[in-house]
């Protein structure tokens, strides 16, 4: 990929008083990709995102967005969905969307037209003259999505976009993200919900306590950390598994456990050791999920 990164952070530091929220983060978002910014709560995801949008300024380091230094950020090329969402409660839906389109550089008539088209598409056409506070929570979320994309930005940045969404709206948002990807735009989103990452992201960056723990394509991350493992489901007391010589670590998911094997150990060793001690219901050689990698890398410290 020869084009300039959609977002590029180099040695970025952000401090709030005595705490360092972002501690020397460098990352690069390839253009036209769906990029997942992962990390536990308080890892510094939102701080990093706010700096990409020039809502706050970094104390150290440089940020480039869409090829330009962030100081020259063209806000009309970016759409943002913050983690904490909200709309002007007393404004009418049509006026609100028009306003958000206008401050992103659209002409008034154009903004109005697009607002109506989006409302139509998301089944909210009849809400155009209603005040936002009269809408259900799910409807408000949809209106919020529209504010993010009404101006057709080249880059959309979504902070924890799936939190608090019902399955219907989760799909609406996923469709919007995939549509953007298809058109060659770039999507950056932060999340701690790993199943979304698994399904959507091509690139991920995991940060913890302000530092980048790993970065790369989903496939490369899995190849690097996915040294084979076994998903096991069984009846009986499985506590002995942890102490087997072939087992490096074990993650208990409740109904299932995921066992990571030591280098050179074969899955059959595990099967043999387990035979007769528990009743095996499922035995599957699998690559570890992002979820497991996440827990392993972040859960340790």
């Amino acid at each position, binding site marked *: 990929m020869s084009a300039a990164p959609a977002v590029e952070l180099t040695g970025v530091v952000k401090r709030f008083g005595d705490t360092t929220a972002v501690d020397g983060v460098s990352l690069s978002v390839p253009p036209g990709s769906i990029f997942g910014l992962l990390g536990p709560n308080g890892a510094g995801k939102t701080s990093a995102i706010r700096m990409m*949008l020039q809502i706050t300024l970094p104390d150290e380091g440089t940020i480039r967005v869409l090829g330009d230094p962030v100081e020259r950020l063209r806000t009309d090329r970016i759409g943002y969905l913050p983690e904490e969402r909200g709309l002007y409660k007393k404004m009418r839906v049509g006026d609100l969307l028009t306003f*958000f389109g*206008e*401050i992103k550089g659209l002409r008034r008539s154009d903004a109005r037209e697009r607002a109506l088209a989006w409302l139509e598409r998301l089944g909210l056409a009849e809400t155009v003259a209603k005040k936002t506070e009269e809408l259900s929570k799910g409807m408000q979320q949809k209106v919020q999505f529209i504010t993010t994309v009404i101006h057709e930005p080249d880059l959309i940045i979504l902070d924890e976009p799936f939190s608090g969404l019902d399955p219907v709206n989760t799909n609406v948002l996923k469709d919007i993200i995939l549509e953007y990807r298809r058109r060659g735009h770039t999507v950056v989103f932060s999340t701690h919900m790993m199943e979304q990452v698994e399904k959507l992201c091509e690139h991920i960056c995991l940060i913890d306590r302000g530092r980048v723990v790993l970065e790369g394509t989903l496939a490369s991350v899995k190849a690097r950390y996915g040294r084979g493992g076994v998903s096991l489901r069984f009846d009986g007391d499985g506590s002995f598994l942890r102490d087997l010589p072939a087992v490096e670590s074990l993650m208990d998911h409740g109904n299932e456990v995921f066992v990571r094997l030591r280098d050179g150990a074969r899955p059959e060793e595990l099967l043999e050791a387990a035979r007769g001690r528990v009743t095996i219901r499922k035995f599957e050689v699998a690559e570890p999920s992002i979820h497991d990698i996440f827990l392993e890398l972040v859960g340790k410290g």
Partner: protein
Amino acid sequence: MTLHVIRREYVEIVRRKSFVIGTIVAPLLMATFFLAPVLLSFFVPSQQFHLAVVDQTGEVGAAFVAALKDTLADGRAKYAATLVPATGGRYEGAREETVAGVREGALDIVVAIPATVFDDGGASYITKEVRNFQILEDLENVLTDIVMRRRLAREGVDTERVASLTTPVRLEMSQITAKGGVEKKDFLTEWAVVFVFVMILYASLLTWGITISRGILEEKSSRVIEVLLSSVRPRQLLFGKVIGIGLAGLTQFAVWSLAGIALTGMGGAMALSALSSVDIPPVVWLYFVGFFLLGFLLYASIFTVVGSICSNEQDAQQLQGIVTLPMIIPILTLMLIIQNPNGPIAVALSFIPLFTPMIMMARVVIVAPPLWQVLLSLALLAASIHLAISFSARVFRVGILMYGKRPSLREVIRWYRVAG
């Protein structure tokens, strides 16, 4: 971008119910308050009073009845008076008889004039309804005039001559204006005009200031702020907001002015003296707009800080309370300043930027204050507006993304430094 913020603020405020009520209904209420009594007197026929005048003197009664010439709005005589001559011993009986008439309701009022009225001035006014003291006063004046003339005539003095010799002196007020000319002025209405304008100025500054802090708080608490900040710079957002709200304030004032002009015009047309005499010099409107704009910039900055550092309505209300407390001082001292517009209190308060708009507004309308005082107070105001805007814009930038406990003053000052 700023333009869109301005328009949004303006349109959303002007559409609010509270704005419509405040702008249109308030002057309507004022109008009804002033005009209702006038209108009522046209439609509700006033009461005619049936009056019996029991006269022991044999001369005062007839003159008294003849002197009662007041008429009602519909043209009827206000007093339907009957003379009951009762000289000598017939006085007591006639009095009792007419009082019985009042008791039964055939009569409203009995005025009984004994022969001794020339010596001690004593006479009686007997009625069931004591509420109408205005009538008592009217009748007393008429009767006094008659009795006095009779007394003077008895002494052989020419009453016409007395009247011309005792003509009272009237002091006619004039004021040397700023331009050096001399103008005749009606000071009472001028005071009233100043009072009303300063009160409106004060109320407007406070209302629109608080509107700003509430608007910022709304954007914070609804979390709209983050989306806004990903589109416009904090300064654009803040200035757009302040300008939009300021324009809404001016719009309200414009509507009120038109209503006021129409009202005084109507008052004049209806020969309503209380209103037709209110002649507001055009320059007063200009002063008001000027002082409103200057004051608004200062107050807007202060309330920007209030809105930026608070995260919830309770905190904000508490802080608004503290901030607005000193703003009442110009109102409390307004009477003093109107009476002595170049006195030490007025001069001192002029130089406190927070008070300058109200105090100077009052002073320039009543009297021409020394030019250096006007210029100095405006310079101080301008300087503090400059400082307040740069301070509030920085605090705004940091504060709008801060949630939770209200910061201490020291923290706010740290924000100011950080945001520089």
